[in-house]
């Protein structure tokens, strides 16, 4: 099986990549500004819902229930979608999905496709796979277009070009769209994109997208978006292909009531998305004549099998966890080396790769819990991060210095007598390092601390020594 999450397997470790990103002051300003704006909007529209917590709990329960019975619901979806005139394909991994999609396009003799934003297609690296077959994919979501034209990587799940500001985008459009003049206002930029894309909407015969939800009961697929490019892709082409991760299933049409309240509020801080498309198979005289669904596993079954980390698959890709994450807000998305960045990326990326790659990601968190608090489907991301750290340690992949430190500490803490001895040792060992009660340079791997921070030195008397002395004094 060739499970793939973009280029994550080749990416540098998070600490190294983060260090590089931290030096990019412009990118950090862009990310800080954008996440501040989205976060404030999200907080405002979440706060106006009196039943927000109940909605979150409903969403969690629906997703947890679906995951427990995923096999049943997937088959139900296949049946219903097929009955409505759709064709359902099953792909166990990235290569299979790419081959299925390329074969559908080739069967129509087409050389171009238009795409709605789909992170799942970035996960399986669909665009390079199509290009290798001589097929040109055109991204039609504004942010994805910016990423594609800039030969860049998405840095955010919902806002892939969040790391770019309008000056950078203007420069990119001037060059890649071969424009002579272009204003620098957002309207100028969207107008340029509109002109560039309109012609493709009308010409290209095959559309590709993902799914926000796939409904087992009716076989329907749902996509929500803000720009209308999705609606164009869903109505103008002759053929439409949906690439759907198997975790996107929800049991019933009425479940959308819960998710369509939570998703736009959590993702973009909107009460509802400007465009909500739900379609079922094919309809005569309306929309594509041929509709395909590619159900993608690509490592998801393995996550499903682990009861403790299964909740990872509850994710509806709203990216609320990215916008509140103090780590993401410092580093931006590229530091994660995966198209899935931020807290959710830190748990989904290594798990999709059977914990064989991206092992530094579960540690890319201070476990502050802001992600869990913001998550509309209540994924306890800190709990999963800790569980995954346990897997890294159990596989023997933790650094040797850390292992030694942890073993030593667990020995020292195994009894109060040993702890008292260790405290004495610390007081003796620290003396060459202490100046004016503080330590400004620590040895070994602890030196990473003292690059920017002093360390409090251990005082002459521990609490337990004080307590003993006090009792003696009271009794004498």
């Amino acid at each position: 099986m060739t499970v793939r999450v973009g280029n994550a397997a080749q990416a540098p470790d998070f600490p190294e990549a983060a260090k590089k990103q931290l030096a990019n002051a412009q990118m950090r300003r862009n990310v800080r500004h954008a996440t501040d704006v989205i976060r404030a909007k999200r907080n405002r529209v979440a706060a106006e819902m009196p039943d927000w917590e109940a909605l979150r709990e409903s969403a969690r329960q629906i997703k947890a229930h679906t995951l427990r019975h995923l096999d049943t619901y997937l088959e139900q979806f296949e049946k219903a979608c097929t009955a409505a005139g759709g064709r359902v394909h099953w792909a166990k991994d990235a290569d299979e999905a790419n081959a299925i999609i390329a074969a559908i396009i080739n069967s129509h003799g087409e050389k171009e496709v238009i795409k709605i934003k789909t992170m799942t297609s970035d996960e399986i690296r669909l665009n390079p796979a199509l290009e290798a077959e001589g097929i040109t994919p055109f991204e039609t979501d504004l942010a994805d277009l910016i990423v594609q034209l800039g030969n860049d990587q998405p840095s955010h799940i919902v806002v892939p070009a969040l790391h770019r500001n309008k000056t950078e985008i203007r420069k990119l459009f001037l060059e890649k769209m071969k424009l002579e003049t272009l204003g620098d206002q957002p309207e100028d930029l969207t107008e340029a994109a509109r002109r560039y894309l309109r012609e493709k909407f009308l010409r290209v015969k095959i559309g590709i997208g993902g799914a926000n939800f796939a409904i087992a009961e009716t076989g329907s697929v749902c996509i929500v978006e803000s720009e209308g490019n999705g609606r164009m892709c869903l109505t103008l082409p002759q053929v439409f292909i949906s690439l759907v991760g198997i975790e996107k299933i929800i049991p019933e049409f009425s479940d959308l009531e819960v998710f369509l309240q939570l998703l736009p509020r959590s993702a973009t801080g909107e009460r509802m998305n400007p465009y909500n498309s739900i379609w079922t198979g094919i309809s005569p005289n309306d929309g594509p004549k041929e509709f395909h669904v590619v159900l993608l596993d690509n490592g998801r079954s393995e996550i499903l099998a682990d009861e403790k980390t299964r909740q990872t698959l509850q994710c509806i890709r709203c990216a609320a966890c990215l916008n509140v994450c103090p780590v993401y807000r410092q580093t931006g998305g590229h530091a994660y080396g995966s198209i899935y960045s931020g807290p959710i990326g830190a748990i989904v990326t290594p798990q999709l790769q059977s914990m064989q790659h991206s092992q530094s990601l579960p540690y890319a968190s201070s476990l502050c819990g802001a992600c869990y608090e913001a998550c509309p489907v209540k994924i306890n991301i800190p709990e999963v991060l800790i569980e995954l750290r346990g897997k890294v340690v159990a596989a023997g992949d933790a650094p040797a210095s850390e292992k030694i430190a942890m073993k030593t500490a667990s020995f020292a803490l195994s009894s109060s007598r040993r702890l008292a001895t260790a405290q004495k040792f610390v007081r003796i060992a620290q003396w060459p390092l202490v100046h004016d009660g503080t330590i400004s340079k620590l040895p070994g791997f602890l030196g990473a601390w003292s690059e920017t921070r002093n360390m409090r030195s251990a005082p002459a008397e521990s609490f337990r020594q004080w307590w003993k002395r006090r009792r003696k004094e009271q009794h004498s």
Partner: protein
Amino acid sequence: MLISLFITCYNDTLFPETGKAVVAVLERLGHTVEFREAQTCCGQMHYNTGYQQEAFPLMRHFLEVFRGAEVICIPSASCVAMIREHFPVMAADSTDPKLIHEVNDLLPRVFEFTELLVDKLGVTDVGAFFPHPVTFHTSCHSLRSLHVGDKPMQLLKNIRGLKLTELPDSDQCCGFGGTFAIKNAPVSSAMLSDKIGSILKTNAQVCAAGDNSCLMHIDGGLTRQKAPVKCMHIAEILAATEPVSNPGSDQ
């Protein structure tokens, strides 16, 4: 009331003043404090870094030490969060019914220091005097795991002489995160830099918190910058009955 103090391993070693302050406040309120000397550590550092196996015997040891203690007071929200959130998980993983029962029996007896004062003892004025400008850092564990809410603020507001200034962006992590501060030192430092910026904006002389782990981190940055702000555990402020000499210039 007989209150059993779990000082925590790092307070014991690095911040004994916090423990002394807890004892002073509780005794001032007329309670008796015991310190079970066999105590060591809750296992948080091991557990959160992925060494769950090493954390397990530390949990067992904790359960043994505090068996029969009526009320356990812990001046550290993150250690309380470890006990409340992860002891039940470890016990369930062991599938040992006796252990599961013991953890269930333990949890209602565990209190973070400000929880103990406000919820269990019903006190918001401990008779302290602290004539200094103070800002309060809400640790992530106290905010999101313990949901202590405004309990620390209620306690601080009733201190005579104390001028409380709200910390901007108080829900933001200081960047400590245990081993995160070392494994991802540059990111952790960038987070700390934001936090210190917020603290300095308040013009407070003292930055208080319910967790010395955050304070050790914040203090490390403030000291490095030679900033005139002193970090103090909230217990030390609640224990004070006379002005502290030169807060902000003795660091």
